[in-house]
Protein backbone atom coordinates (compact mmCIF):
# COMPACT_ATOMS: atom_id res chain seq x y z
CA UNK A 1 0.00 0.00 0.00
CA UNK A 2 2.78 2.40 0.94
CA UNK A 3 4.92 1.51 -2.08
CA UNK A 4 1.86 2.02 -4.29
CA UNK A 5 1.49 5.56 -2.96
CA UNK A 6 5.19 6.26 -3.47
CA UNK A 7 4.76 5.27 -7.13
CA UNK A 8 1.73 7.58 -7.36
CA UNK A 9 3.87 10.36 -5.94
CA UNK A 10 6.90 9.91 -8.18
CA UNK A 11 5.46 8.91 -11.56
CA UNK A 12 4.34 12.46 -12.45
CA UNK A 13 7.93 13.63 -12.23
CA UNK A 14 9.05 11.87 -15.36
CA UNK A 15 7.01 9.23 -17.10
CA UNK A 16 3.64 10.86 -16.47
CA UNK A 17 4.70 14.48 -16.20
CA UNK A 18 1.58 16.62 -16.50
CA UNK A 19 3.14 19.15 -18.84
CA UNK A 20 5.38 17.16 -21.13
CA UNK A 21 3.50 13.86 -21.27
CA UNK A 22 -0.12 14.41 -20.31
CA UNK A 23 -0.23 17.81 -22.10
CA UNK A 24 -2.04 19.46 -19.21
CA UNK A 25 -1.46 22.81 -17.57
CA UNK A 26 0.43 24.36 -20.47
CA UNK A 27 -1.14 27.82 -20.39
CA UNK A 28 0.05 28.92 -17.01
CA UNK A 29 3.39 27.17 -17.39
CA UNK A 30 4.35 29.47 -20.22
CA UNK A 31 3.06 32.74 -18.90
CA UNK A 32 4.46 32.83 -15.38
CA UNK A 33 7.97 31.50 -15.98
CA UNK A 34 9.63 34.80 -16.87
CA UNK A 35 11.09 34.97 -13.39
CA UNK A 36 11.83 32.34 -10.79
CA UNK A 37 9.80 33.79 -7.91
CA UNK A 38 6.35 33.85 -9.60
CA UNK A 39 7.03 30.39 -11.03
CA UNK A 40 7.66 28.93 -7.58
CA UNK A 41 4.59 30.65 -6.12
CA UNK A 42 2.47 29.38 -9.01
CA UNK A 43 3.84 25.86 -8.66
CA UNK A 44 3.09 25.83 -4.93
CA UNK A 45 -0.43 27.21 -5.49
CA UNK A 46 -1.24 24.57 -8.10
CA UNK A 47 0.15 21.81 -5.89
CA UNK A 48 -1.96 22.94 -2.92
CA UNK A 49 -5.14 23.30 -4.98
CA UNK A 50 -4.67 19.99 -6.81
CA UNK A 51 -3.94 18.06 -3.63
CA UNK A 52 -6.89 19.42 -1.65
CA UNK A 53 -9.42 19.33 -4.47
CA UNK A 54 -8.40 15.73 -5.18
CA UNK A 55 -8.93 14.97 -1.50
CA UNK A 56 -12.34 16.63 -1.26
CA UNK A 57 -13.73 15.19 -4.50
CA UNK A 58 -12.42 11.74 -3.60
CA UNK A 59 -14.24 11.93 -0.27
CA UNK A 60 -17.44 12.96 -2.11
CA UNK A 61 -17.04 10.65 -5.07
CA UNK A 62 -19.80 8.24 -4.16
CA UNK A 63 -22.40 10.92 -3.51
CA UNK A 64 -22.05 13.14 -6.59
CA UNK A 65 -24.75 12.50 -9.22
CA UNK A 66 -23.21 11.90 -12.63
CA UNK A 67 -25.03 14.67 -14.48
CA UNK A 68 -23.72 17.53 -12.36
CA UNK A 69 -20.29 16.04 -11.85
CA UNK A 70 -18.41 18.77 -13.72
CA UNK A 71 -20.23 21.60 -11.96
CA UNK A 72 -19.51 20.14 -8.52
CA UNK A 73 -15.83 19.70 -9.38
CA UNK A 74 -15.58 23.24 -10.71
CA UNK A 75 -17.27 24.70 -7.63
CA UNK A 76 -14.90 22.87 -5.26
CA UNK A 77 -11.85 23.94 -7.27
CA UNK A 78 -13.08 27.53 -7.58
CA UNK A 79 -13.61 27.80 -3.82
CA UNK A 80 -10.07 26.54 -3.14
CA UNK A 81 -8.60 28.93 -5.71
CA UNK A 82 -10.41 31.88 -4.11
CA UNK A 83 -8.80 30.98 -0.78
CA UNK A 84 -5.35 30.62 -2.35
CA UNK A 85 -5.80 33.91 -4.23
CA UNK A 86 -6.72 35.79 -1.04
CA UNK A 87 -3.74 34.27 0.79
CA UNK A 88 -1.41 35.31 -2.04
CA UNK A 89 -2.85 38.83 -2.12
CA UNK A 90 -2.29 39.08 1.63
CA UNK A 91 1.25 37.73 1.91
CA UNK A 92 3.01 38.20 -1.45
CA UNK A 93 1.12 41.04 -3.08
CA UNK A 94 3.80 41.93 -5.66
CA UNK A 95 3.97 38.35 -6.96
CA UNK A 96 0.18 38.15 -6.97
CA UNK A 97 0.05 41.22 -9.22
CA UNK A 98 2.50 39.60 -11.64
CA UNK A 99 0.39 36.45 -11.76
CA UNK A 100 -2.82 38.52 -12.23
CA UNK A 101 -5.45 36.49 -14.09
CA UNK A 102 -3.39 33.31 -14.04
CA UNK A 103 -4.22 32.58 -10.41
CA UNK A 104 -7.88 32.57 -11.39
CA UNK A 105 -7.03 30.40 -14.34
CA UNK A 106 -5.82 27.66 -12.00
CA UNK A 107 -9.52 26.78 -11.93
CA UNK A 108 -9.44 25.85 -15.58
CA UNK A 109 -5.94 24.45 -15.35
CA UNK A 110 -6.38 21.17 -17.17
CA UNK A 111 -4.25 19.37 -14.59
CA UNK A 112 -6.97 19.78 -11.98
CA UNK A 113 -9.86 18.60 -14.10
CA UNK A 114 -7.68 15.90 -15.62
CA UNK A 115 -6.62 14.43 -12.27
CA UNK A 116 -10.10 14.81 -10.76
CA UNK A 117 -11.68 12.86 -13.60
CA UNK A 118 -8.91 10.32 -14.03
CA UNK A 119 -7.92 9.65 -10.43
CA UNK A 120 -9.95 11.26 -7.66
CA UNK A 121 -13.30 9.99 -8.92
CA UNK A 122 -12.17 6.38 -8.69
CA UNK A 123 -9.63 6.26 -5.87
CA UNK A 124 -9.50 6.57 -2.11
CA UNK A 125 -8.95 9.98 -0.45
CA UNK A 126 -5.38 9.52 0.78
CA UNK A 127 -4.17 8.13 -2.57
CA UNK A 128 -5.88 11.01 -4.36
CA UNK A 129 -4.21 13.53 -2.06
CA UNK A 130 -0.80 11.99 -2.79
CA UNK A 131 -1.57 11.96 -6.53
CA UNK A 132 -2.47 15.64 -6.35
CA UNK A 133 0.82 16.46 -4.64
CA UNK A 134 2.77 14.33 -7.14
CA UNK A 135 1.26 16.00 -10.18
CA UNK A 136 1.59 19.45 -8.62
CA UNK A 137 5.27 18.82 -7.91
CA UNK A 138 5.87 17.41 -11.41
CA UNK A 139 4.29 20.57 -12.81
CA UNK A 140 6.35 22.79 -10.48
CA UNK A 141 9.51 20.99 -11.53
CA UNK A 142 9.00 21.92 -15.18
CA UNK A 143 8.00 25.46 -14.21
CA UNK A 144 11.14 25.94 -12.16
CA UNK A 145 13.34 24.54 -14.95
CA UNK A 146 11.76 26.92 -17.47
CA UNK A 147 11.93 29.94 -15.18
CA UNK A 148 15.53 29.16 -14.22
CA UNK A 149 16.75 29.32 -17.80
CA UNK A 150 14.51 32.17 -18.84
CA UNK A 151 15.48 34.43 -15.97
CA UNK A 152 19.17 33.51 -16.02
CA UNK A 153 19.66 33.90 -19.76
CA UNK A 154 17.10 36.65 -20.22
CA UNK A 155 17.91 38.97 -17.33
CA UNK A 156 21.15 37.61 -15.97
CA UNK A 157 19.59 37.23 -12.55
CA UNK A 158 17.87 34.71 -10.30
CA UNK A 159 15.24 35.75 -7.76
CA UNK A 160 16.00 39.30 -8.74
CA UNK A 161 19.64 39.05 -7.68
CA UNK A 162 22.25 39.57 -10.37
CA UNK A 163 24.13 36.34 -11.01
CA UNK A 164 26.15 37.06 -14.12
CA UNK A 165 29.04 39.29 -13.03
CA UNK A 166 29.56 42.69 -14.58
CA UNK A 167 32.83 41.54 -16.13
CA UNK A 168 30.90 39.32 -18.54
CA UNK A 169 28.90 42.30 -19.73
CA UNK A 170 32.05 44.32 -20.18
CA UNK A 171 33.44 41.60 -22.41
CA UNK A 172 30.46 42.00 -24.71
CA UNK A 173 28.01 39.44 -23.29
CA UNK A 174 24.41 40.55 -23.66
CA UNK A 175 21.23 39.23 -22.11
CA UNK A 176 19.18 37.14 -24.52
CA UNK A 177 16.06 39.31 -24.57
CA UNK A 178 14.13 36.69 -26.51
CA UNK A 179 14.12 34.56 -23.36
CA UNK A 180 11.90 37.03 -21.57
CA UNK A 181 9.36 36.94 -24.36
CA UNK A 182 6.66 34.26 -24.40
CA UNK A 183 7.62 32.37 -27.57
CA UNK A 184 10.88 31.23 -26.00
CA UNK A 185 8.96 29.38 -23.30
CA UNK A 186 7.29 27.28 -25.97
CA UNK A 187 10.57 26.49 -27.68
CA UNK A 188 12.18 25.62 -24.33
CA UNK A 189 9.33 23.20 -23.54
CA UNK A 190 9.85 21.62 -26.96
CA UNK A 191 13.51 21.14 -26.13
CA UNK A 192 12.67 19.68 -22.70
CA UNK A 193 10.32 17.22 -24.38
CA UNK A 194 13.05 16.34 -26.86
CA UNK A 195 15.52 15.62 -24.06
CA UNK A 196 12.96 13.68 -22.05
CA UNK A 197 11.92 11.50 -24.98
CA UNK A 198 15.49 10.81 -25.99
CA UNK A 199 16.10 9.43 -22.52
CA UNK A 200 12.81 7.51 -22.30
CA UNK A 201 12.20 5.79 -25.60
CA UNK A 202 8.79 4.56 -24.39
CA UNK A 203 7.34 8.06 -24.65
CA UNK A 204 8.00 8.47 -28.38
CA UNK A 205 4.81 8.59 -30.40
CA UNK A 206 4.75 6.90 -33.73
Amino acid sequence: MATNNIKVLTKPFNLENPITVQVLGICSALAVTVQLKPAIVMGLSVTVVTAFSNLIISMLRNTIPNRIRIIVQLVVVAALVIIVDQVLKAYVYDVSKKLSVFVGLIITNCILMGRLEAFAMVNKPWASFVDGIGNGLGYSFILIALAFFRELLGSGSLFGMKIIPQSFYDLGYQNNSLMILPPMALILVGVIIWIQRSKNRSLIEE
Partner: protein
Amino acid sequence: MHENFFNLFVRSVFIDNMIFAYFLGMCSFLAVSKTVKTSLGLGIAVTFVLLVTAPFNWVIDHYMLKAGALAWLSPSFESLDLSYLSFLIFIASIAAMVQLVEMIVEKVSPPLYNQLGIFLPLIAVNCVILAVALFVQEREYSSISDVMAFSLGSGFGWFLAIVAMAAIREKLKYSNIPKPLRGLGITFIITGLMAISFMAIMGIKI
Protein backbone atom coordinates in the same frame (compact mmCIF):
# COMPACT_ATOMS: atom_id res chain seq x y z
CA MET B 1 -14.18 54.82 -22.49
CA HIS B 2 -15.90 53.83 -25.70
CA GLU B 3 -13.71 52.01 -28.17
CA ASN B 4 -14.29 51.61 -31.83
CA PHE B 5 -15.85 48.17 -32.37
CA PHE B 6 -13.78 47.31 -35.41
CA ASN B 7 -10.52 48.49 -33.82
CA LEU B 8 -11.11 46.39 -30.74
CA PHE B 9 -12.08 43.40 -32.87
CA VAL B 10 -8.97 43.53 -35.06
CA ARG B 11 -6.79 44.13 -32.02
CA SER B 12 -8.21 41.06 -30.27
CA VAL B 13 -7.74 38.85 -33.32
CA PHE B 14 -4.10 39.66 -34.11
CA ILE B 15 -2.30 41.77 -31.53
CA ASP B 16 -3.90 40.27 -28.43
CA ASN B 17 -4.23 36.82 -29.96
CA MET B 18 -5.27 34.43 -27.22
CA ILE B 19 -2.87 31.70 -28.29
CA PHE B 20 0.19 33.53 -29.54
CA ALA B 21 0.23 36.48 -27.18
CA TYR B 22 -1.36 35.09 -24.02
CA PHE B 23 -1.03 31.30 -24.43
CA LEU B 24 -4.54 30.54 -23.29
CA GLY B 25 -6.40 27.46 -24.46
CA MET B 26 -3.11 25.69 -25.17
CA CYS B 27 -4.12 22.24 -23.96
CA SER B 28 -6.98 21.76 -26.40
CA PHE B 29 -5.01 23.69 -29.02
CA LEU B 30 -2.19 21.13 -28.85
CA ALA B 31 -4.43 18.11 -28.50
CA VAL B 32 -6.97 18.85 -31.22
CA SER B 33 -4.80 20.47 -33.90
CA LYS B 34 -3.92 17.18 -35.56
CA THR B 35 -6.40 17.57 -38.43
CA VAL B 36 -7.97 20.63 -40.01
CA LYS B 37 -11.47 19.16 -39.86
CA THR B 38 -11.60 18.77 -36.06
CA SER B 39 -9.87 22.13 -35.60
CA LEU B 40 -12.56 23.89 -37.62
CA GLY B 41 -15.27 22.35 -35.44
CA LEU B 42 -13.57 23.18 -32.16
CA GLY B 43 -12.66 26.72 -33.27
CA ILE B 44 -16.23 27.53 -34.19
CA ALA B 45 -17.52 25.99 -30.96
CA VAL B 46 -15.11 28.05 -28.83
CA THR B 47 -16.03 31.28 -30.62
CA PHE B 48 -19.72 30.59 -30.16
CA VAL B 49 -19.38 29.80 -26.46
CA LEU B 50 -17.29 32.96 -25.96
CA LEU B 51 -19.96 35.09 -27.64
CA VAL B 52 -22.58 33.66 -25.31
CA THR B 53 -20.71 33.61 -21.98
CA ALA B 54 -18.60 36.79 -22.04
CA PRO B 55 -21.48 39.31 -22.22
CA PHE B 56 -23.48 37.25 -19.71
CA ASN B 57 -20.60 37.33 -17.22
CA TRP B 58 -20.11 41.04 -17.86
CA VAL B 59 -23.73 41.67 -16.95
CA ILE B 60 -23.34 39.63 -13.77
CA ASP B 61 -20.19 41.53 -12.84
CA HIS B 62 -21.69 44.92 -13.65
CA TYR B 63 -24.96 44.45 -11.79
CA MET B 64 -23.99 42.08 -8.98
CA LEU B 65 -20.32 41.73 -8.18
CA LYS B 66 -18.59 45.09 -8.62
CA ALA B 67 -18.12 47.48 -5.73
CA GLY B 68 -21.43 49.27 -5.29
CA ALA B 69 -23.01 47.22 -8.06
CA LEU B 70 -25.94 46.09 -5.96
CA ALA B 71 -27.07 49.68 -5.38
CA TRP B 72 -29.99 49.17 -7.78
CA LEU B 73 -31.48 46.68 -5.35
CA SER B 74 -31.39 48.94 -2.32
CA PRO B 75 -29.26 51.96 -1.30
CA SER B 76 -27.97 50.14 1.77
CA PHE B 77 -26.05 47.76 -0.50
CA GLU B 78 -23.96 50.61 -1.90
CA SER B 79 -20.83 49.63 0.02
CA LEU B 80 -20.98 45.94 -0.86
CA ASP B 81 -18.14 44.59 -2.98
CA LEU B 82 -18.63 40.99 -3.99
CA SER B 83 -15.82 40.76 -6.55
CA TYR B 84 -14.01 38.12 -4.52
CA LEU B 85 -16.77 35.75 -5.60
CA SER B 86 -16.00 36.41 -9.27
CA PHE B 87 -14.14 33.15 -9.88
CA LEU B 88 -16.90 31.03 -8.46
CA ILE B 89 -19.77 32.85 -10.13
CA PHE B 90 -18.04 33.13 -13.50
CA ILE B 91 -17.05 29.48 -13.73
CA ALA B 92 -20.45 28.30 -12.53
CA SER B 93 -22.21 30.48 -15.12
CA ILE B 94 -19.83 29.26 -17.82
CA ALA B 95 -20.48 25.62 -16.94
CA ALA B 96 -24.22 26.25 -16.88
CA MET B 97 -24.14 28.17 -20.20
CA VAL B 98 -22.15 25.44 -21.91
CA GLN B 99 -24.63 22.84 -20.68
CA LEU B 100 -27.47 25.01 -22.02
CA VAL B 101 -25.73 25.52 -25.39
CA GLU B 102 -25.17 21.76 -25.63
CA MET B 103 -28.87 21.05 -25.03
CA ILE B 104 -29.97 23.71 -27.54
CA VAL B 105 -27.55 22.50 -30.23
CA GLU B 106 -28.71 18.93 -29.69
CA LYS B 107 -32.33 20.00 -30.20
CA VAL B 108 -31.85 22.46 -33.05
CA SER B 109 -29.17 20.78 -35.17
CA PRO B 110 -28.34 17.12 -34.39
CA PRO B 111 -25.74 16.80 -37.20
CA LEU B 112 -23.80 19.74 -35.74
CA TYR B 113 -24.11 18.19 -32.30
CA ASN B 114 -22.72 14.90 -33.57
CA GLN B 115 -19.85 16.66 -35.28
CA LEU B 116 -18.84 18.61 -32.17
CA GLY B 117 -19.12 15.45 -30.10
CA ILE B 118 -17.06 15.52 -26.95
CA PHE B 119 -15.67 19.01 -27.57
CA LEU B 120 -18.64 20.95 -26.29
CA PRO B 121 -18.40 19.88 -22.62
CA LEU B 122 -14.62 20.18 -22.89
CA ILE B 123 -14.95 23.84 -23.76
CA ALA B 124 -16.32 24.64 -20.31
CA VAL B 125 -12.86 24.07 -18.89
CA ASN B 126 -11.01 25.74 -21.73
CA CYS B 127 -8.94 28.51 -20.14
CA VAL B 128 -9.89 30.96 -22.91
CA ILE B 129 -13.50 31.19 -21.79
CA LEU B 130 -12.77 32.04 -18.17
CA ALA B 131 -9.82 34.22 -19.21
CA VAL B 132 -11.95 36.39 -21.50
CA ALA B 133 -14.47 36.87 -18.68
CA LEU B 134 -11.66 37.83 -16.28
CA PHE B 135 -9.98 40.13 -18.81
CA VAL B 136 -13.30 41.92 -19.39
CA GLN B 137 -13.52 42.44 -15.64
CA GLU B 138 -9.89 43.54 -15.30
CA ARG B 139 -9.97 45.98 -18.22
CA GLU B 140 -13.29 47.40 -17.01
CA TYR B 141 -15.03 47.60 -20.36
CA SER B 142 -17.98 49.88 -19.91
CA SER B 143 -20.33 48.89 -22.71
CA ILE B 144 -21.66 45.63 -24.02
CA SER B 145 -20.51 46.35 -27.56
CA ASP B 146 -16.90 46.49 -26.29
CA VAL B 147 -17.40 43.14 -24.63
CA MET B 148 -18.86 41.65 -27.80
CA ALA B 149 -16.03 43.00 -29.95
CA PHE B 150 -13.44 41.62 -27.56
CA SER B 151 -15.01 38.17 -27.20
CA LEU B 152 -15.73 37.83 -30.92
CA GLY B 153 -12.17 38.89 -31.73
CA SER B 154 -10.62 36.57 -29.15
CA GLY B 155 -12.65 33.62 -30.40
CA PHE B 156 -11.85 34.32 -34.01
CA GLY B 157 -8.14 34.73 -33.22
CA TRP B 158 -8.16 31.38 -31.40
CA PHE B 159 -9.95 29.80 -34.35
CA LEU B 160 -7.38 31.14 -36.83
CA ALA B 161 -4.52 29.88 -34.66
CA ILE B 162 -5.79 26.34 -34.27
CA VAL B 163 -6.71 25.93 -37.94
CA ALA B 164 -3.31 27.28 -39.04
CA MET B 165 -1.54 24.88 -36.68
CA ALA B 166 -3.60 21.94 -37.92
CA ALA B 167 -2.77 22.77 -41.53
CA ILE B 168 0.95 22.88 -40.69
CA ARG B 169 0.84 19.63 -38.73
CA GLU B 170 -0.92 17.86 -41.58
CA LYS B 171 1.91 18.88 -43.89
CA LEU B 172 4.51 17.90 -41.30
CA LYS B 173 3.55 14.26 -41.61
CA TYR B 174 5.68 14.09 -44.74
CA SER B 175 8.86 15.52 -43.25
CA ASN B 176 11.76 13.79 -41.57
CA ILE B 177 11.71 14.89 -37.95
CA PRO B 178 13.93 13.11 -35.37
CA LYS B 179 11.88 10.54 -33.46
CA PRO B 180 11.99 12.11 -29.97
CA LEU B 181 10.81 15.40 -31.42
CA ARG B 182 7.88 14.01 -33.39
CA GLY B 183 4.34 14.92 -32.46
CA LEU B 184 4.25 17.05 -29.31
CA GLY B 185 7.82 18.34 -29.31
CA ILE B 186 7.82 19.83 -32.79
CA THR B 187 4.35 21.27 -32.22
CA PHE B 188 5.64 23.28 -29.27
CA ILE B 189 8.58 24.58 -31.26
CA ILE B 190 6.38 25.52 -34.21
CA THR B 191 3.92 27.31 -31.94
CA GLY B 192 6.88 29.21 -30.52
CA LEU B 193 8.03 30.21 -34.01
CA MET B 194 4.52 31.29 -34.97
CA ALA B 195 4.35 33.31 -31.78
CA ILE B 196 7.61 35.05 -32.70
CA SER B 197 6.13 35.99 -36.06
CA PHE B 198 3.02 37.37 -34.34
CA MET B 199 5.31 39.52 -32.23
CA ALA B 200 6.01 41.51 -35.35
CA ILE B 201 2.62 43.15 -34.95
CA MET B 202 2.86 43.61 -31.19
CA GLY B 203 2.67 47.20 -30.03
CA ILE B 204 0.70 48.48 -33.00
CA LYS B 205 -1.81 50.91 -31.58
CA ILE B 206 -5.17 50.95 -33.28
